[in-house]
């Protein structure tokens, strides 16, 4: 195929997915979709290999292909024009956790199955022990809401009323769930329509050839880069505070990456055994983590398609946190996925040292749920970002989503208009970035006041015990925390993973995420940059002196000079 037509079709495929992505956000019902934008769309070939993507949430990249394979396996030849399938099953489907619903439709050209269009979108509630379904103390997936294996939602254009009835009957927020699923079917149909136009324009064979070729180009590119790396193996580990059940025990994720010639093997057999609590992840998700790490190391612009999957070989150990036996709980998978991604990045930076990066502040979601004073059930789920660690090229960015996660913050005004909570504070935390020549990113603090007597709190992850590590002399980032009723008699510090904490009107919840780690010795940071940070409230005066070793007098004089104008002016006024 000539390189020009190829590039043209590849751009078209990415354009189609962007359009699907725009549409799914714009039509979302739950705040999770329309405010947090926790959903991603993809096009896949009949074997499930990705042929079109537009990165929103990289963590879904290997999950939808797995879902397609499981749908193929379940339904075989019984996949027809106009069908739509759904699944939220981590084991039988392939989604990260049961709150994520995949909706997938087959695309036919002249009776031939040519592609699948699909999306994964987080659902507001699918039943289970706690509202919002993500149960931080779950010991098996049966406590994580209702599990749909791959089932047919629409059969040749006809909605399966039975399935819809089951969906409706198994959610605390059925309108939101059904509305969002309708949106997912809509974007899949949109994808089908656009694929049909593409094939009409270029013909089926050239299109199929382009699907295959883009995967080959990506594969070749990765292999060429791998050949330029020295052969060898590096390993790294990363920790998660707790599995939510055994609170005093940290969970270890380990990776050994061996590169030989143009091949690479991610070996996770050194991970600890699966946990009772929900910090296990399924292999399809772990693969997504490896893809992310490899692309980030080689070239962020590399299309994440089936070509990546062909290069990455993985060794799993059945019964480990990365390949648990059914029905191990998986719902707080994000912390685990972030840990294994971070370990993979560290190990890979053994091959590409200029891409070394200090630890990040991790991920996590907070759910406040219950019933409003008017008696209406509500689920307020938010994904609150953290901060990146610093690296050899600069400070870590503050208050961002990290690695595989990429959800938006929910607007205060939308939350307060729709849910019985009130925000008391929303700000960056001084000194939360790990000191270093390059400072770790600062992280946010959000404090909520509860306005209903029937509410409960769920927290899914955070670094309350294991901080983001510093590198090359840089210091760790500040720990995160969750405090109930800070400064009051009933003050209580909470672990990073729990569910079902009962709250009543007037209670306050302080959520502090963890900061990013620093890079390089803090004393190497220039005086001017430290001064800037102090003036901007990023670094305290005390930390500037104690951590960065800034001369106290010099600092005070400089601060004085900055404040001086103000004082001089105030004197004149008087």
């Amino acid at each position: 195929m000539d390189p020009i037509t190829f590039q043209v079709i590849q751009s078209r495929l990415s354009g189609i997915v962007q359009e699907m992505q725009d549409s799914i956000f714009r039509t979302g019902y739950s705040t999770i979709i329309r405010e947090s934008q926790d959903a991603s769309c993809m096009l896949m070939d009949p074997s499930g290999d990705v042929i079109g993507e537009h990165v929103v949430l990289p963590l879904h990249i290997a999950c939808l292909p797995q879902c397609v394979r499981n749908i193929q396996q379940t339904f075989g030849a019984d996949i027809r024009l106009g069908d739509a399938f759904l699944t939220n099953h981590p084991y039988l489907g392939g989604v990260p956790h049961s709150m994520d619903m995949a909706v997938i439709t087959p695309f036919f050209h002249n009776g031939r199955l040519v592609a699948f269009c699909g999306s994964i979108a987080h659902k507001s509630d699918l039943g289970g022990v706690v509202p919002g379904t993500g149960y931080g103390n779950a010991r098996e997936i049966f406590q994580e809401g209702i599990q749909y294996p791959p089932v047919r939602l629409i059969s040749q254009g006809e909605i399966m009323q039975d399935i819809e009835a089951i969906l409706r009957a198994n959610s605390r927020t059925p309108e939101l769930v059904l509305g969002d699923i309708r949106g997912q079917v809509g974007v899949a149909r949109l994808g089908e329509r656009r694929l049909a136009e593409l094939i009409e324009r270029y013909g089926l064979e050239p299109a199929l050839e382009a699907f295959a070729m883009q995967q080959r180009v990506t594969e070749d590119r990765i292999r060429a880069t791998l050949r330029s790396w020295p052969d060898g193996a590096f390993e790294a580990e990363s920790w998660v505070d707790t599995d939510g059940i055994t609170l005093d025990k940290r969970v270890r994720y380990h990776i050994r990456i061996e590169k030989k010639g143009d091949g690479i093997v991610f070996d996770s057999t050194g991970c600890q055994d699966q946990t009772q609590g929900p910090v296990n992840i399924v292999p399809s998700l772990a693969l997504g983590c490896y893809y992310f790490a490899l692309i980030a190391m080689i070239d962020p612009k590399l299309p994440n398609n089936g070509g990546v999957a062909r290069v990455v070989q993985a060794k799993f150990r059945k019964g480990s946190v990365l390949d648990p036996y059914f029905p191990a709980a998986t719902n707080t998978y994000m912390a685990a996925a972030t840990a294994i991604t971070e370990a993979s990045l560290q190990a890979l930076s053994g091959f590409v040292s200029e891409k070394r990066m200090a630890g990040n502040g991790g991920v996590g979601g907070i759910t406040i749920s219950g019933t409003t004073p008017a008696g209406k059930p509500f689920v307020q789920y938010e994904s609150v970002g953290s901060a990146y660690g610093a690296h050899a090229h600069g400070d870590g960015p503050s208050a961002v989503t990290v690695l595989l996660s990429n959800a938006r913050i929910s607007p205060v005004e939308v939350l307060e208009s729709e849910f019985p909570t009130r925000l008391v504070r929303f700000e960056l935390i001084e000194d939360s970035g790990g000191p270093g020549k390059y400072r770790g990113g600062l992280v946010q603090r959000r404090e909520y006041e509860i306005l209903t007597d029937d509410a409960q709190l769920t927290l899914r992850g955070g670094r309350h015990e294991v901080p983001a590590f510093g590198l090359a002399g840089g210091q760790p980032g500040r720990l995160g925390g969750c405090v109930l009723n800070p400064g009051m008699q009933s003050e209580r510090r909470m672990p990073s993973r729990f569910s079902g904490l009962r709250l009543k009107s007037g209670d306050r919840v302080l959520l502090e995420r963890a900061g990013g780690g620093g890079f390089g010795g803090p004393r190497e940071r220039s005086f001017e940059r430290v001064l800037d940070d102090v003036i901007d409230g990023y670094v305290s005066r005390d930390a500037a002196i104690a951590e960065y070793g800034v001369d106290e007098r010099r600092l005070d004089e400089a601060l004085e000079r900055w404040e001086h104008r103000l004082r001089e002016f105030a004197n004149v006024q008087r």
Partner: protein
Amino acid sequence: MSLRVAVDTGGTFTDFVVLDEKTGALDVFKVPSTRGSEADGIIAGLEQYLKRQRRAAGDVGFFSHGTTVGTNAILEEKGAKTGLLVTEGFRGIYEVGEQSRPYGATTYDLFYQKPPPLVRPRYTAEIGERVLFDGSVLRELDEETVRAAARKFRAHEIKSVAVCLLFAFRNPAHERRIAEIFAEEAPNCNVSLSSEVIPQIREYFRLSTTLVNAYLNPLLTGYVAALDGRLKELGCRTDQRFIMRSNGGVATFETAARRSVQTILSGPAAGVVAAEKLAAQMPGYRNVVTFDMGGTSTDVALIENGSPARRSGGKVHDRYVLVPMLDIHTVAAGGGTLAYVDASGVLQVGPQSAGAIPGPVAYGRGGTQPTVTDANLVLGYLSAGNALAGGTLSLDKDAAERAIREKIAEPLGLSTIDAARGIVEIVNVKMQEAIKVVSSNRGYDLRDFYLLAFGGAGPLHAGPMAEELGMKGVLVPPFPGVTSALGLLLSDVRHDYVVSDLRALEAVDARKVNEVFEGMRKHAEGELLGEGFRHNQLVYEYDLDLRYVGQGYELTVRVERVPLHEGDLQKIRGDFDQQHLALTGHSAPDAGVEIVNYRVTGVAIVPKATLASPFSAKGTLDDAFVSYRDAYFGSAKPVQTRLYDRANLPEGAQIDGPAILLQADSTTVIPPGQRGRVIELGLLEIMRA
């Protein structure tokens, strides 16, 4: 007072279109832009013109201006030193922003950095106060915190301040009081209130919009004052002085400066207006997609049945601005866009650009990496000897050829011609994708649309693109290179108003809707009369933002007539379902719908130029023939291609492709298999032969 002057300031050139109403004569010319003191270039150009034509400045009866001052200040972060006031405890709104990283490759970029804030945290002050979601006050305004902030800002020479308090769109009292206190404490500080700039929910986006306004206001105010002064100095005293805004309407100098955030798309908006007015006068051509291709970027917009598509906001140059604007989509693709072979061995074109300096290799100003212009030259579409618009630059074809051969053709194992063709095809695809964003992605069928090509490079690329996209054909306006300036002579004054009032559609009747609209209309009328317009100049447009109950984002649905009659609301509901289906692949005709916003646009009809063909050639096609040139189209062999002088083409003339039309401000390529035809108003229509 018969001269109507339009000035469109671009990065490289300042374009003029001057119409003498008395004689109908249209003058088109360019002068170099004077970056940083744009008024100098404008005044110089105007002076030259008046001298050349032996006219007095007092003859200017209308002056309209498209400016990039706001856009450039945002791009280059050269706005005013600005302060920010937020509700106590909520500094995070701006510092966290969206929190998410941009989608696409950036997500994988471990070295990602957020765009630098327009206001550093040191100039953010927290104000004691709190308003709740229903507009009630939880905590009264602590005026001392305001005064302290004002004093601090004054001491630090803050020129402008943005105020964005939580729920100020529901209850603006605290923001208004802050403006009063600033007027006392820091009278020289420009104040932008979120409740005035954009009274809508979602604090970060409102804050960002307000902040951009504050950041640009002093600059625009200074610029407008300078320009105003210079015009008066010159003896140009007309009160008909306007600036184009992002919504495609013009505003008086003063209004434009006060709402500077609305001037961000001033330049590209004028081009869309020109297209709108052309379409309006040509019954067979009311559906067009505008395609304005310049040196570094391309702007596209959709016009359906004579009306351009609009949107209520979006990200412009990394900053969110939620103000009504024409739905103009910009893609980094232009004549100066660079081509290269990436690490995967794939040919890439853009988004980087060679800019004006060094520019394409052929300019001979030090550029070494081939650009789209170089490819067009190698393919024979551009003339090496032909002076470029407004300049005397000649192009070095050998250098362009060499660069494409060495940097693209050899690494890919292609011939130089195939490599050049590849560059053009890939940049075309990028621009086609941009066209799809505003058309097919929004549910429109491109088969119903013409591609209206302008800007310096648009008519070079449009032919094959329109065919690829399955569009009806291409339209090329008489002076493609200065079409935006022409649009300035054709615009009305537009003010947009929005009122948020969330309510189920079933719960309102026609009377209630009429009441809200009438209140807004009166307000619009008051402002427009205050600006000196007369009753008989005013007309109004009405829209409703609707969504299904439970959704968070709305679709804007046109209200055809106000006052509404009983039954009209059902029709509007039906329109909404239909738009939703077309846009998203699904609709829910049984679900509840709610009204989110009422929108009214007040339009003051300004006396405008009438469009007529500027060409008056009476001869035959052969009279316009210039010479032959070798040009490459589908095959490896060059085709002897006829060159014509556009201005000498008689109306009705038919030109079979391949052919190339020359004019001072642009070049048009009619590819093989297509046929050009000179139609009314001097437009060129290109269709499949």
